[in-house]
């Protein structure tokens, strides 16, 4: 097997290359896009875990992913639009491509959707499960515990401070240092300050006593202390973190009771600062922090859920888009050989057997396209072979048909029931019936051929019956057509003699071949007549001379020796004998002439001169009927035997005159006989015609006018036209004999001969 024709057409090759390049670029672009999307997705997923990175880039990544998803969506939309428009246009293969793409997309989409749904449930449940009423209650309780503890500590300090403040009641401002120290030690406080009513520091002790400007309580706090006698608060917790609790203090501000109320009017305030137990603060802060974070997350859980689900949805979109794109690209890849094949099949079905494109892939589809290209080529070869042989058959048939059409013999094909299957023009001519119009009908239905059909049927039946015994291949039989016609006006006139031969064709139909042998029969008849005439003339002529001589001798010897009456009888009888013998001699000579007409010696003859010479005998004095000459001066010399031609002219003129005379005797007034010569340029022949206005030929005579002993004349041998015919045959000239029809009735006869001219004279 030769290698398959890959691509003959350079343009097609180029187009294929081009489309391949486009496909590659699209595929690479899509792959790159998908890769970028996946990387971004990965980053997004990473960022959700990695706090710092996530803080910085989350929004950016999200937007980027959305943009890529949008781009993919656009690409998919474009592809979908293209697919649908191709489908609308009924482009070949778009349905298959759509189906493949849908299958692949479904294969990508359904698992993605499943995972998505499960993950969605998982994410929302798991996020919800972080937030527990018990945990929240515990955190709340812890917070409350810390708060109550701190408050208890504060109020405890306040009440202690109040009792301590009573020690300072009578202490003047100048010597407060010692009592203050004492109070500090009693209370285990860090600092103790004494303020007067105008918020001036009177004295203080403790770690911060050396501070230039100790933190002064706010006027509000002074007011509260005055009205409530004592107040306490906690400082330093706001900025405190579990790791840094050094600033956490309880401060209490109490009014130092003044026994001399109204005397000096001066109120004094004692401020006590005590450090908070670090473990307590740390724990309380830890609880606070945990609670805050818990509450933060509880508040933000919708957002969290939205974030996770958004990430999930985005990844689903990317996966599905990627799947759809891949589906289209892969589907295209798979569909392409199929399309190529289907396209090729369509072309082949439409009759286009040009070489088909084949793919060079190593897979089965590529092999299939190659096999298809091979098959197409073989098909094309086979078809060419069939076509050429068909052409041969056709030309052979045309040859056969031409042969059949131009065959003089008639050919008819009949089926066993006698129905005409086909016939040739020869059959139509011979049978004088429009056989072509009767194709498909029975031969017996053709008018006038009923008997012929019956005869043939009989012949075939007996042939088929006997064939087995005798091993014959055909039958042959001669028929006379029209002989038994009931209405036939002339028994001899319209008989066609046929010789027919029948055989059976391989497909059980019957072949009938027949030929018109009327002319052969006629020729045979004239030949036989010639022979008879010659012998008869010979046998008759011999005794004629002794008869004549004996009669003359009788007259000579007996003349004057008998009585006058007997003399008269004698003379008359002898004359009759001599005359009749003469007539017989002439008759016999004519027979002899007809029978042994010598072969013509063809020489150039001037027909006009010859006619003029003969006409001297037919001038007005000698002629019974006037004869006019119409000679064509342009006639070239013809090839002929002058002696025989004279005979022809004589015979024709004689016939014409006889016909005219008989017309005269019939009572009409015929015109003169006309003899004319004519140069027919187109056929290159010279025509000699003799026309009369006599009684014309009867129809039955017209057919057989040239046969001997066929005559209309009372006293005629019937040899005149036979001799003319014979001479004309010798000269290879055609004789036409016809009646001149004037006003629908016969107005005379016309005999024409055409002669070949002298060739050298012409050239």
């Amino acid at each position, binding site marked *: 097997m030769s290698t398959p024709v890959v691509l003959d057409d350079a343009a097609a090759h180029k187009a294929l290359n081009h489309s391949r390049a486009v496909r590659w670029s699209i595929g690479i672009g899509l792959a790159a896009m998908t890769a970028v999307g996946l990387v971004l997705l990965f980053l997004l997923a990473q960022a959700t875990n990695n706090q710092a990175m*996530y*803080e910085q880039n989350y929004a950016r990544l999200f937007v980027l992913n959305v943009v890529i998803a949008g781009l993919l969506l656009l690409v998919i939309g474009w592809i979908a639009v293209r697919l649908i428009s191709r489908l609308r246009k009924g482009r070949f293969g778009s349905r298959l491509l759509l189906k493949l793409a849908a299958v692949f997309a479904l294969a990508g989409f359904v698992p993605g959707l499943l995972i998505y749904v499960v993950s969605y449930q998982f994410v929302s449940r798991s996020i919800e499960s972080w937030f527990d009423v018990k945990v929240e209650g515990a955190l709340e309780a812890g917070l409350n515990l810390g708060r109550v503890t701190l408050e208890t500590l504060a109020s405890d300090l306040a009440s202690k401070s109040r009792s301590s403040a009573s020690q300072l009641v009578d202490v003047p401002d100048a010597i407060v240092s010692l009592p203050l120290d004492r109070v500090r030690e009693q209370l285990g406080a860090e600092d103790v300050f004494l303020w007067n009513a105008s918020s001036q520091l009177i004295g203080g002790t403790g770690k911060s006593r050396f501070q230039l400007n100790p933190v002064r309580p706010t006027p509000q706090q002074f007011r509260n202390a005055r009205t409530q006698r004592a107040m306490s608060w906690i400082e330093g917790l*706001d900025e405190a973190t579990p790791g840094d609790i050094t600033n956490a203090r309880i401060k209490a501000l109490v009014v130092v009771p003044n026994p001399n109320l109204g005397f000096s009017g001066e109120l004094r305030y004692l401020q006590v600062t005590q450090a908070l137990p670090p473990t307590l603060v740390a724990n309380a802060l830890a609880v606070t922090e945990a*609670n805050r974070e818990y509450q*933060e997350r509880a*508040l*933000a859980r919708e*957002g969290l859920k*939205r974030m996770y689900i958004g990430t999930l949805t985005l990844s689903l979109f990317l996966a599905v888009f990627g799947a759809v794109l891949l589906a289209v690209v892969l589907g295209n890849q798979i569909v392409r050989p199929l399309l190529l094949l289907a396209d090729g099949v369509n072309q082949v079905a439409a009759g286009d057997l040009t070489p088909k494109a084949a793919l060079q892939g190593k897979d089965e589809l590529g092999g299939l396209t190659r096999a298809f290209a091979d098959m197409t080529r073989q098909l094309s070869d086979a078809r060419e072979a069939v076509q050429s042989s068909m052409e041969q058959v056709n030309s052979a048939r045309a040859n056969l048909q031409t042969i059949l059409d131009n065959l003089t013999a008639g050919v008819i094909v009949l089926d066993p029931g006698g129905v005409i299957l086909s016939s040739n023009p020869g059959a139509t001519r011979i049978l004088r019936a429009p056989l072509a119009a009767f194709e498909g009908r029975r031969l017996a239905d053709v008018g006038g051929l009923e008997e012929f059909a019956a005869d043939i049927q009989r012949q075939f039946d007996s042939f088929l019956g006997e064939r087995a015994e005798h091993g014959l291949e055909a039958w042959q039989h001669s028929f006379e057509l029209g002989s038994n016609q009931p209405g036939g006006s002339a028994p001899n006139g319209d008989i066609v003699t046929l010789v027919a031969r029948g055989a059976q064709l391989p497909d059980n139909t019957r072949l009938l071949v027949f030929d018109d042998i009327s002319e052969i029969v006629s020729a045979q008849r004239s030949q036989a007549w010639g022979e008879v005439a010659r012998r008869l003339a010979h046998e008759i002529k011999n005794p004629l001379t002794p008869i004549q001589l004996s009669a003359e001798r009788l007259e000579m010897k007996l003349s004057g020796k008998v009585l006058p009456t007997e003399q008269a009888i004698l003379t008359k009888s002898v004359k009759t004998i001599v005359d009749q013998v003469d007539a017989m001699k002439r008759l016999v000579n004519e027979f002899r002439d007809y029978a042994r007409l010598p072969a013509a010696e063809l020489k150039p003859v001037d027909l006009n001169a010859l006619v003029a010479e003969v006409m001297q005998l037919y001038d007005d004095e000698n002629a019974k009927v006037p004869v006019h000459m119409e000679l064509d001066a342009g006639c070239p010399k013809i090839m002929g035997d002058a002696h025989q031609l004279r005979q022809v002219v004589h015979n024709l003129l004689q016939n014409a005159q006889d016909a005219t005379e008989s017309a005269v005797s019939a009572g009409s007034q015929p015109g003169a006989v006309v003899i004319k010569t004519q140069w027919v340029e187109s056929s290159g022949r010279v025509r000699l015609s003799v026309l009369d206005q006599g009684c014309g030929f009867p129809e039955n005579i017209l057919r057989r006018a040239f046969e001997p002993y066929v005559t209309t004349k009372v006293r005629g041998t019937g040899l005149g036209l036979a001799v003319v015919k014979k001479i004309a045959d010798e000269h290879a000239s055609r004789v036409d004999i016809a009646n001149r029809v004037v006003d629908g009735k016969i107005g005379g006869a016309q005999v024409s001969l055409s002669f070949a001219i002298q060739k050298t004279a012409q050239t």
Partner: protein
Amino acid sequence: MTDGVFLSAAIRFDLPPAVEDALLKGVPMFFVTEADLFRDRWYWADKKVVTAQRQVRLAYQPLTRRWRVTASSGASAGVAGAALSQSFDSLNEALISLQRVSRWKIAEPFEVEPGSRHNVELRFRLDVTQLPRPFQIGALGQSDWDISANTFQRLPVEPEK
């Protein structure tokens, strides 16, 4: 007394329930006040002379049930970014202090071109970007979390006496 451009303003807003809820649960909120000083230019768009920024943090301490307002100036104002803290017993007091801007120096005298007209644009908003990230996703595009004010005023700048 120092010279310069001083800005006083009163901003009135009600805290949305969602924000108040978040505050009570211990989530601190950041409010940003921004002031832009423009110089009029008849031939072109106004020129931005200076931008001052001031950030206020509002937080609740559940242990002490006290509200704390911490104000810090942005570096762009030319003043050192000192933080000033105040504690309040109730949210209302804290809000009142937060809504009042008093004698905020937004530009130095040399930054102002005498004789030309100046405009001040004041912007106030809840800074959502400083919230924890999940909040942002939840708060994004929600009117509950949208606190902002914007005003534009043409002011003749007078030298301080």
